[in-house]
């Protein structure tokens, strides 16, 4: 079985036994919510409803209620879309890529990270839908045989690639997630007593699909997880590459850039991990998971953020260099305009939040502090939102013909919808944190002996 160096810090604190793990993971589901949870939940639901209102208004009246115009035809809608998709990426990366790399520390957090992925992608999916002029015809983007005979989609269009990429991503990561959930649901099912909480018992029996943990099933389980991880890894890279192609395949200076796919994927992981941190630091408090989500996990993620952040920074510089090196006046102006034009403040906040601030993680003290990490992760989230805003709006608002140049400024509806999706996201996540086993306990038990503090201390004696 898996051996681990003694000097490594334990991943599971407190003298936990298998049963303790079971109890701790089941507690949020069985117990009552604490007041933090209720406060957050109320807040998110309120935001969510506000967003729903704004969406209804948009669909009822027309896209004109946003701040868009003949030159800037995308702004907050697609910015938010890319932002949410990006956030989605860390989850799959943690559960898939880290699984392939046999990173044991992922086990405490991958469940929640994946949940975040799915909820994030749901938010992202909303935007392509409502940003349409006629959303009630959205189904036209799927290749459904129709009475018009030869009326089909255009497979040259990156937007159609998006449709396939995102629906695949959403469904596959959901399946991946659920396969992992089944044994844990079974655990909860078996703890539920028929007499005290019959409804819950029924519910979890249903969710557990009748899992009974036979040796053969476990064998298949592990193989399937491995293969799904193998599938999800290229998927996660492909999805954001394709999203980036929405821009890269166009002709607009500032969009038409070959560096976009890797650059976007990195940015996605970057922002994704930031969001994971934001969520986990909240979650470990509201559902008392301090023993399982330790500073060690946070530190590992901080290292990844530091790494990807620096790479993203490199990408920014490369863009500028390529613009100058290409010798194309339109390219050159586009990037000059980003940095010094009317939207310089967006570019500045992007640079400072994404490139400069994460450099603080070189300092161990900051890297290993929950408070600092929480604050910095918020900064990164903001920075990444601005990155997308900069790419989309500042490239569009001044393209080829100066006669068409103009500016963009959001309306309350733009903002309302964005806040709404944030509310929706947290609503889902908080509900999840109270009804799902938030840690993959079955997997976690496999590393208890190797990384549990108790066993470590014992073997150190």
């Amino acid at each position: 079985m898996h051996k681990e160096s003694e000097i490594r810090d334990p991943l599971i604190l407190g003298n936990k036994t298998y049963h303790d793990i079971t109890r701790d993971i089941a507690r949020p589901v069985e117990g009552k919510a604490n007041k933090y949870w209720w406060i957050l939940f109320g807040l998110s639901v309120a935001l969510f409803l506000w967003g729903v209102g704004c969406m209804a208004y948009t669909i009822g009246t027309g896209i004109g209620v946003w701040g868009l115009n003949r030159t800037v035809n995308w702004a907050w809608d697609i910015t938010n879309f890319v932002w949410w998709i990006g956030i989605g990426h860390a989850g799959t990366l943690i559960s898939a890529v880290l699984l392939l790399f046999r990173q044991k520390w992922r086990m405490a957090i991958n469940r929640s990270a994946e949940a975040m992925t799915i909820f994030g992608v749901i938010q992202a999916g909303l935007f392509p839908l409502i940003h349409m002029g006629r959303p009630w015809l959205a189904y036209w983007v799927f290749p459904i045989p129709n009475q018009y005979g030869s009326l089909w989609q255009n497979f040259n269009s990156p937007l159609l690639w998006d449709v396939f990429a995102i629906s695949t991503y959403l469904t596959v990561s959901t399946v991946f997630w659920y396969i992992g959930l089944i044994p844990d649901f079974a655990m909860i099912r078996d703890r539920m007593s028929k007499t005290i909480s019959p409804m819950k018992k029924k519910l979890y029996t249903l969710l557990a699909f009748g899992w009974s943990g036979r040796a053969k099933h476990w064998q298949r389980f592990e193989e399937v997880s491995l293969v799904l991880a193998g599938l999800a890894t290229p998927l996660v890279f492909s999805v954001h590459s394709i999203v980036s192609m929405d821009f890269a395949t166009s002709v607009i200076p500032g969009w038409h850039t070959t560096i976009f796919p890797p650059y976007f994927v990195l940015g996605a992981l970057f922002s994704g991990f930031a969001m994971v941190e934001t969520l986990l630091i909240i979650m470990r408090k509201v559902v008392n998971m301090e023993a399982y989500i330790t500073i060690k996990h946070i530190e590992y993620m901080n290292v990844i953020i530091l790494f990807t952040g620096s790479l993203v920074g490199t990408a920014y510089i490369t863009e500028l260099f390529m613009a100058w090196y290409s010798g194309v006046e339109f390219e050159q102006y586009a990037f000059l305009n980003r940095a010094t034009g009317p939207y310089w403040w967006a570019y500045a906040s992007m640079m400072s939040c994404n490139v400069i601030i994460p450099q603080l993680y070189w300092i161990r003290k900051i890297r290993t502090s929950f408070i600092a990490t929480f604050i910095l992760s918020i900064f990164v989230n903001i920075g990444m939102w601005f990155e997308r805003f900069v790419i989309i709006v500042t490239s569009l608002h001044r393209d080829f013909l100066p006669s068409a140049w103009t500016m963009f400024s959001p309306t309350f509806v733009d903002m309302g919808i964005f806040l709404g999706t944030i509310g929706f996201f947290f609503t889902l996540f908080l509900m999840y944190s109270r009804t799902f086993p938030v840690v993959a306990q079955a997997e976690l038990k496999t590393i208890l002996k190797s990384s549990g503090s108790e066993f470590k201390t014992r073997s150190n004696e």
Partner: protein
Amino acid sequence: MSKKILYAIFDDDEVLVKSVKELRSKGIEIAEVYSPFPVHGLDHALGLKETRMAITAFIYGCLGLAFGGLLIYYIMISGVGKSWPMNIGGKPNWTFYQNMPAFVPIMFECTVLFAGHLMSLTYLFRNRLYPGATTTSPDPRTTDDKFLMELEIEGSDVEIKKILTATGASEINEKGNENE
């Protein structure tokens, strides 16, 4: 002769594996083992065959790739393309290979889509897992921290019980009269 089913419960995975090895070396067949988490090395100890989930995934993947390719070929190039030739941005809509680069993303996505979903379905199907199915584990604690070994024996079980206790089984129950 009456058939008897024994349930030996262990508290620790390593102990379980040892005992499994012990029993099998003595030529005693183990019907099934229920554990709260995948116990490494157990499948070898039990002498389970390699699972073929990965192979199915590969097949499904190929299927998806073919589907994606054909779908696009039908819509953009052949049939429809011919019956209603669409000139989209001057792209060559009469050859697949010239227009290929634009089709790669979707063909890839189709591959993953098929592989991922169909394999998972097969997995559920082979494990008899479906909404509403009930657990077949004799002891609910097997999803918590207990490891249960199921043996089918004929004749006397004294010998086996001895070995089991020796190899560290915490409880040994017979089907029918488990002591609750």
